[in-house]
């Protein structure tokens, strides 16, 4: 059982613990239930993105278009529903956003699978296309008055209680969606042929084809599925912010990729776990949401975030390098 101590998940978890203790010792409010819930709340949308990015990276690619897909899906779905002016149940909105996302994701997938284009280039290109199209042809003005069902969904809490200090602490219903996505993807990656196929594809695409995986299907699946999830995540963002903003979410891709890589998902493909990706995200979210608690002046915050990312990844990388260079003895 010495083996899991060699994984990057282990080191990221340790770093998170150290960070928790350090922040908590500066400000006890860190360990309050309110703060823990807020950390989860901050992770609801990025949580799905992290899962998406993890799948793509494991499959041997990289996707920088998911924020554009999410924004495109949520905004156009909201617009369509407002236009229809029917009191549709909320899952229709999510489904619609998901389907739009699926379509956009499939564009990525088809380009990547059938033309064998480098994934970074395709998604850079489509990202620019999608958001350009959205803002030019669909609309560029924030929608503040959501359809009633969405507004209601955003207001309905999943958990809610009031602390001694009189603050209402809670999580929106959408946390369930993220949780479901995490569980489903974790099961899929571990226990289905598609999941293992994604790993195989990232490990060696040529071999994957030779042993009989339909690699074109797998790639289309990955990008399509990720598009679908991004659409859902976008819609969650809309309900959480109670408005649909067509320039929201753009520009978050690099930090999400960093979180995923930090969690031990290898950028070269084939390696990574859901747990690792989530730990990476937790580390980043904790850093971002604790600087005021620790009392770091606003001028210094950006610097501190950068330094912590470097230190965190540095410690993890160094430990892994050390542990993997240790050989077990062959001498008797």
């Amino acid at each position, binding site marked *: 059982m010495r083996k899991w101590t060699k994984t990057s998940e282990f080191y990221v978890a340790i770093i998170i613990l150290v960070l928790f203790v350090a922040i908590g010792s500066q400000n006890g409010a860190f360990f309050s239930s309110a703060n823990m819930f807020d950390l989860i709340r901050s992770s609801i949308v990025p949580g799905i993105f992290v899962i998406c990015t993890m799948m793509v990276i494991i499959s041997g690619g990289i996707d920088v278009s998911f924020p554009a897909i999410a924004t495109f899906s949520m905004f156009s779905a909201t617009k369509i529903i407002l236009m229809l002016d029917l009191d549709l149940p909320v899952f229709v909105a999510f489904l619609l956003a998901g389907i739009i996302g699926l379509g956009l994701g499939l564009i990525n997938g088809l*380009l990547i699978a059938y*033309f*064998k*284009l*480098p994934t*970074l*280039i*395709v998604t*850079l*290109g*489509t*990202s*620019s*296309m*999608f*958001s*350009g*199209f*959205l*803002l*030019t042809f669909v609309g*560029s003005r924030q929608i503040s008055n959501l359809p009633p069902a969405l507004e209601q969904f955003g207001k309905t809490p999943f958990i809610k209680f009031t602390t001694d200090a009189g603050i209402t602490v809670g999580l929106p219903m959408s946390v369930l969606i993220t949780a479901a996505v995490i569980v489903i993807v974790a099961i899929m990656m571990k226990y289905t042929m598609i999941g293992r196929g994604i790993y195989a594809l990232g490990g060696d695409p040529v071999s994957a084809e030779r042993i009989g995986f339909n690699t074109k299907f797998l790639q289309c699946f990955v990008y399509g599925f990720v598009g679908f999830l991004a659409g859902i995540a976008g819609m969650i963002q809309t309900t959480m912010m109670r408005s649909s903003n067509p320039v929201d979410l753009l520009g978050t891709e*690099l*930090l999400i*990729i*960093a979180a995923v*890589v*930090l969690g031990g998902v290898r*950028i070269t493909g084939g390696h990574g776990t859901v747990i690792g990706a989530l730990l990476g995200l937790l580390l980043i979210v904790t850093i971002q949401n604790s600087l005021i608690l620790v009392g770091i002046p606003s*001028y*210094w*915050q*950006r*610097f*501190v*975030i*950068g*330094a*912590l*990312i*470097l230190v965190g*990844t*540095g410690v993890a*990388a*160094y430990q*892994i*390098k050390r542990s993997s260079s240790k050989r077990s003895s062959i001498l008797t």
Partner: protein
Amino acid sequence: MSNHASKRRGTDSSYDDLSFSIKRWLSSDGNLTRLFVIMVLVFVTMAILSPRTFLSLDSFSSMAFQFPVLGILSLAMMLSMISGGIDLSIVGIANLTSILAAMVMVRLIPEGASAGTSLLYIAVGIVCAMIVGILCGLLNGFAVAKIGIPPILVTLGSMQMFMGLAIVITKGQAIVGLPEQFSAIGNGSVVGIPMPLIIFILCIGAAYLLLNRRPFGMKLQLLGSNPTASRYGGIRNTTVLLKTYALSGLLASIAGLVMIALTNSAKADYGTSYILQAILVVVLGGVNPNGGFGKIAGVVMAVLTLQFLSSGLNALHVGNFFKDFIWGIVLILVMVINVVSPRMKWKRKPAG
């Protein structure tokens, strides 16, 4: 054995030919040819769509002031990408170093200094910026090569750090009032060629020599295509990576200096949109994001293509979002053509 060898010898005779030929150079890399064709196509399209504004001297001069900064940053990005990494911190380095230079030129300069003295301060500022740029790059290189952090994480973190430091130093404000002699670098021309363009051309020349003529360049490309083999082949991977990121930092600081000369002020957040643009330019220019390959000519053509597209669409008064849309389409079209056209060629003459 020698008779055996001679029997099998079939080496391409053009190998010995050292003379340079554009035709051979272009045809040696189909992607380059296609990129060239696409650049010309974009140019012609824009010229047809708005002949009066796009084809004017003013328009060319305006473009020549615009693309050098992105061009130099793309060269910086290219170096790290050839090594198999990426450098997201270039804009951070550019801003941090140019802020230091600006502080030297603005804050340290004595009141009423003579032209000579202020030139001295300008020189000190420029040197300071370059040295700090190299140091920032070395920090990245150290984290990548020695500690073993993936480059995307290193430079994402250091990007925040450099920009954060710039904000701390300036309190977010711009530093203004750079000496006039310095602004001349950004807005002046020599024999009709804008200074930024001249600096870009110098950077291209230096990068070309470095990448294609110096052993370092070959080592970098080999390291990029297989770091294990390069270690077994006697290349000092650490040294090469340190040099690569240091050079990337140096180029970034040069870009930063041009940027502040253009804007006559320095600030922590100038040019943040250049990061993704530089990645875009570099991959469009044919640099392999997995490392090992990259041609400077490709990157230069990609920068020009982007500029033609951007200025051409501006002349048509289309919205900037529509520009994004077109740019995405062009990028993907280029890549698809790159893949499809060689396939078609084989179909036409199999076993050529």
